[in-house]
């Protein structure tokens, strides 16, 4: 049984809901103004210059090309240091492994650091079904967990919540007098979470990046919560997408610095932990057991397809969310899965089904802001175009049938017209005549188009086709000039 919820089919509907929410718009607009512009500036200020993003891309590509070797080396080092490594082919295997540990150790309470891959595999509900209470310890994640919601941003999961909503939530769940004062709210969360940290038997985290050479993983946070979650409980289970690795420590440092700039316009996160195994004899803290769960869950398919392998370079810094004009209007929930924004538009269909994620592939403007913002210089628009080609032309490897029906016929008609200039011109002429039947403004712009074009005129007038297109005017003029 899987608790994974995929709601990519509801993109249009959920987008409409996001657009209609003025609070969300204000929050996202503030976020994008602060972080979107700030990140571009942070790249410019890099000591190595903004070209470091291209260097990072090459590092990541090389790591992806040698993934098997690097993961093996990482696993060997961690095992040498007394840790366990589990390679999970599916979400079910990953959560099953974690549930097994919890059962063996009698874990009742787990504290968790923010991790998108555990959202992807729906770890929390799966553990809950095994009688384990999982408490999110990142403040934003904690808020939305109390609200029973899902993250709407990869780094700022509760960006859609207002201070008033949080005040209500905390008054209801933490038993404090209602307040909208951020320090008081933060303090209340901190006190509640400290109790959980001390009582928990299991700490769960994601992995921002792993290094094969040294055999360690890193977690980055600004609240210190991940460090507590990974050191206080007796067992630490870390989940990583199988692509989150680089070969060497010098490369690692470059990726980490870009991650922090892309994610939060910081030179480096406040807390960066390097973890390579459980507590060793003589060490004063750390867990008794350390488990690393390396999650495939569809990533091998991306690895096998040269068109989408580049997506595995992504480190989920969320810089693309902070510049995407579409994300900035519709919000993260519209994307119907753990990953939102431009990264979600590409990776979600690849992980959960291209056909059902159709609107994610098509519902973007290809404006390219994401590519410029990407800390790893990933060409997301290129992959959106590839996904669209799969939707149109079909791809048995991805289980997609060629599109059919009216849309295909329309493009065939278009192909016929652009191949025959005389016919093309007659079609324009016909348009110029037929448009007179439509409701128009005094200036001649069209007020209402029939379906399937009616979407345009819901909010915009449509320009009239010129009585005489340019090419005809030009030819006429030339003829007159020749006549002299």
């Amino acid at each position, binding site marked *: 049984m899987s608790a994974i919820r995929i709601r990519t089919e509801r993109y249009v509907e959920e987008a409409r809901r996001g*657009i209609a929410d003025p609070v969300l718009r204000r929050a996202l607009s503030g976020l994008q103004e602060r972080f979107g512009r700030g990140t571009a500036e942070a790249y410019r200020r890099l000591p190595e210059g903004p070209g470091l993003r291209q260097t990072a891309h090459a590092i990541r590509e090389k790591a992806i090309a040698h993934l098997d070797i690097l993961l093996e080396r990482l696993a060997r080092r961690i095992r040498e240091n007394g840790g366990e490594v589990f390679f999970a082919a599916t979400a079910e295997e990953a959560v099953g492994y974690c549930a097994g540990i919890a059962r063996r150790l009698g874990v009742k309470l787990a504290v968790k650091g923010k991790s998108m891959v555990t959202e992807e595999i729906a770890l929390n509900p799966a553990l809950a079904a095994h009688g384990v209470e999982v408490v999110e310890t990142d403040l934003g994640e904690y808020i939305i967990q109390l609200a029973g919601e899902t993250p709407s941003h990869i780094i700022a999961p509760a960006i859609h919540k207002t201070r008033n909503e949080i005040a209500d939530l905390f008054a209801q769940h933490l038993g404090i007098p209602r307040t909208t004062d951020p320090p008081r709210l933060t303090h209340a969360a901190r006190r509640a979470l400290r109790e959980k940290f001390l009582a928990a038997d299991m700490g769960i985290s994601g992995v921002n990046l792993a290094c094969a050479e040294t055999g360690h993983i890193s977690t980055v946070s600004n609240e210190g919560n991940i460090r507590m979650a990974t050191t206080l409980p007796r067992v630490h289970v870390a989940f990583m997408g199988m692509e989150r690795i680089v070969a060497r420590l010098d490369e690692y440092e470059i990726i980490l610095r870009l991650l922090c700039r892309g994610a939060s316009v910081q030179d480096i996160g406040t807390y960066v932990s390097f973890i390579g195994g459980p507590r060793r004899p003589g060490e004063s803290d750390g867990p008794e057991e350390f488990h690393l769960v390396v999650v495939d869950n569809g990533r091998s398919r991306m690895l096998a397809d040269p068109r989408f392998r580049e997506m595995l370079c992504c480190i989920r810094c969320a810089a693309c969310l902070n510049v995407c004009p579409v994300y900035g209007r519709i919000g993260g929930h519209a994307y119907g899965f753990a990953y939102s924004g431009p990264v979600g538009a590409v990776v979600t269909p690849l992980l959960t089904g291209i056909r059902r994620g159709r609107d994610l592939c098509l519902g973007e403007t290809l404006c390219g802001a994401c590519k410029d913002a990407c800390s790893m210089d990933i060409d997301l628009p290129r992959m959106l175009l590839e996904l669209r080609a799969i939707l149109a*032309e079909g791809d048995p490897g991805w289980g997609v049938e060629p599109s059919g029906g009216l849309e*295909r016929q329309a493009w065939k008609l278009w192909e016929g017209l652009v191949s025959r*200039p005389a016919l093309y011109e007659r079609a324009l002429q016909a*348009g110029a005549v037929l448009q007179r039947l439509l409701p128009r403004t005094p200036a001649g712009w069209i007020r209402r188009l029939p379906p399937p074009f009616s*979407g*345009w005129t819901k909010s915009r007038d449509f320009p009239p086709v010129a009585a005489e*297109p340019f090419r005809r005017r030009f030819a006429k003029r030339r003829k007159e000039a020749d006549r002299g």
Partner: protein
Amino acid sequence: MDTVTLFVPCLMDAFRPEAAEAVVAVFEGLGYAVHCPAEQTCCGQPAFNAGYRNEARTAARRFLRLFGDAEAICCPSGSCVAMVRHHVPALFDGEPDWRALAVRTAARTFEFTEYLVDVLGRDDLGASFPGRVTYHDSCHLLRGLGIREQPRRLLRRVRGLELVEMKNSDCCCGFGGAFSVKYPDISTALVADKVEWIRESGAEAVVGADLGCLLHIEGALRRKGLGVRALHIAQVLAGGR
């Protein structure tokens, strides 16, 4: 006399022929002969963006046949040039001869403002256009081709023209071709903000170098009843025709 071969975007041909005429006027004013293949229709971009690559290839092949011999191809649209420069060669990955032709053609295809400023080295065209205008950075022009300063330089040299920057001039207007029709709510949310930023700038006209965006923005401006005009930069450089 030097010749410029004009590749006219299909939207401009059909919806705003006067902008294409302005392009011709600009070049003729500079003493260039303008050649414009009469058989041209479309480079294939709409089909390509929709994922219909076979159909796009048909159009691209025609484009290459018609323009392959030209010395310099100039096109008043960033997105069409981005298509020719970046995507058409890739469409022929499996066909070496076509690919070679596509690469050669791409290297000789220039966007209008880029051609004027970077190739011809001209920024003062002697144009005059009284009024306050703001410039919209079209996505494929700005991020696809890296053209940001060229149109601004040209505008700054126009007599009587005051160039004011709007907020977020580089933010997408929400056109996106078929996107504007298929996802009208998202597209509308984007253009609504763009219109607001244009209004805030106090400009009497918004100027751009991609007609798709301009028609979209103008459609929204008109529906709102705002008297701001949307002009292709060639229309301004030709003296406000």
